[in-house]
């Protein structure tokens, strides 16, 4: 068996919102074609850490980063990196669904159009494929011209997943993608994650322990800006090394 390729890597990452030290000396390697789950109490820095990998935190004033974030071994904060190129390669689904004020179709087509795709037939095909894989197609195929805001919260979330996938990134960052979904849509998303693993590297933040256990190969437990434990998901859920991990996943916190 050859070593798995490292897709994403954090090397001694510290991150600050003004004086607030939000991430403290994080080291992590994420293998290609694997699913990694981030768990931890609210405010521990999961979203902050996730956003580093497509430079979403750049948009926030007064932030400061030390250490390195690597994609395919290259520092994504290097001056030569184009943020647009990076985001094409690293898609993101946010904690709160954020559809654009456009039609359902145009939401999914958006990334392709911005990236200069002109072939309408191809766009149509990609939109359908993406909606299919996001388990939304059946519900929206007859109202593609309707505004995305007419969808329910859970449908909007799946729309955002479809939008992220339409441009075929190689990494998909998902921040609680299923928090507003019913069990059936959740199961579809989890199935999708399982499928996507063949082609993508997926990082998912979730507050649902069972979801982390079901979908991920490795799990990272964060607490107060630190990565407390990062290991095989089986190990974390059967026999974690750290007491704080155990207290958290068994619901004995605080």
């Amino acid at each position: 068996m050859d070593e798995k390729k490292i897709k994403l890597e954090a090397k001694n990452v510290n991150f600050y919102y003004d004086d607030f030290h939000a991430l403290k000396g994080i080291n992590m390697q994420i293998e290609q074609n694997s699913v990694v789950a981030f768990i931890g109490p609210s405010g521990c820095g999961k979203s902050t850490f996730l956003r580093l990998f497509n430079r979403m935190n750049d948009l926030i004033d007064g932030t400061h980063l030390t250490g390195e974030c690597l994609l395919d071994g290259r520092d994504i904060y290097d001056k030569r990196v184009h943020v647009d190129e990076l985001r094409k390669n690293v898609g993101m689904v946010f904690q709160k669904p954020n559809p654009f004020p456009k039609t359902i179709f145009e939401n999914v087509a958006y990334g392709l159009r911005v990236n200069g795709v002109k072939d309408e037939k191809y766009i149509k095909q990609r939109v359908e494929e993406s909606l299919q894989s996001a388990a939304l197609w059946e519900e929206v195929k007859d109202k593609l011209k309707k505004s995305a805001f007419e969808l329910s919260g859970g449908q909007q979330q799946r729309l955002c997943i479809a939008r992220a996938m339409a441009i075929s990134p190689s990494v998909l960052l998902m921040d609680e993608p299923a928090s507003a979904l019913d069990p059936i849509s959740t199961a579809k998303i989890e199935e999708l994650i399982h499928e996507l693993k063949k082609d993508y590297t997926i990082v998912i933040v979730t507050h649902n322990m069972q979801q982390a256990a079901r979908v991920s190969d490795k799990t990272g437990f964060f607490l107060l800006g630190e990565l407390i434990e990062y290991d095989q998901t089986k190990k974390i859920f059967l026999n974690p090394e750290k007491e704080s991990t155990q207290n958290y996943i068994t619901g004995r916190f605080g």
Partner: protein
Amino acid sequence: MNHLEKEMLALRNEVLDMWALVYSQLEKTKGALLKDNKDLAREVISRERRVNAYELKIDSDCENYIALYSPVAIDLRLVLSLLKINGTLERIGDFAEGISRFVIDTYEKKYDSLIREMRLEEMFDELLEMLEGSRKALESEETKMSGCLFAKDEYVDNLYDQSLQKISEYIKMHSEDALTCIFLAILSRKLERIGDHCNNIVEEIVFYIDAKVLKHAGKHKEV
């Protein structure tokens, strides 16, 4: 303590109660055989139903706990080991009942000296200590006595081998008692199996507390 922990504690206490019952079943079986006390044997047989009832109740409580609370980590290990210990205790109860039936149906005073030579009393005592020691290990969540309990199982295995030797000598001189002797050999075998079961219980406790899987690691006899 939150309600989840309370549920878990209740489940654990149920298993500990069953443990006490099975212990007393084995202790009474010992008395029934060694003192040829058929009343005691009858008591064991009638209380076997309670052991079975415990098993069913604990089984379903474990299932409910898993279904409702999706336990993980130490909680998952505990409920899994309780489930297995439950089944194992029930089997030990079966053996005790089987031996008690033998006392009622077949046993006669004239075999008292053979039983002494077979050292069955010593076997019983070792098994009772294993059962009690493993219960204490779970109660105190402490595995340091596991080595000493495993050693007892090996000692029981030796006693079993020796008991077969004694029986075969006896048969040579009393061939007319061969059938009862075979029953006695089976009885000794049952005790030896109880030792294996106690061993498994200790392994489950080590899995729960230390998260180490010891099963099939050594050369434990399994037939």
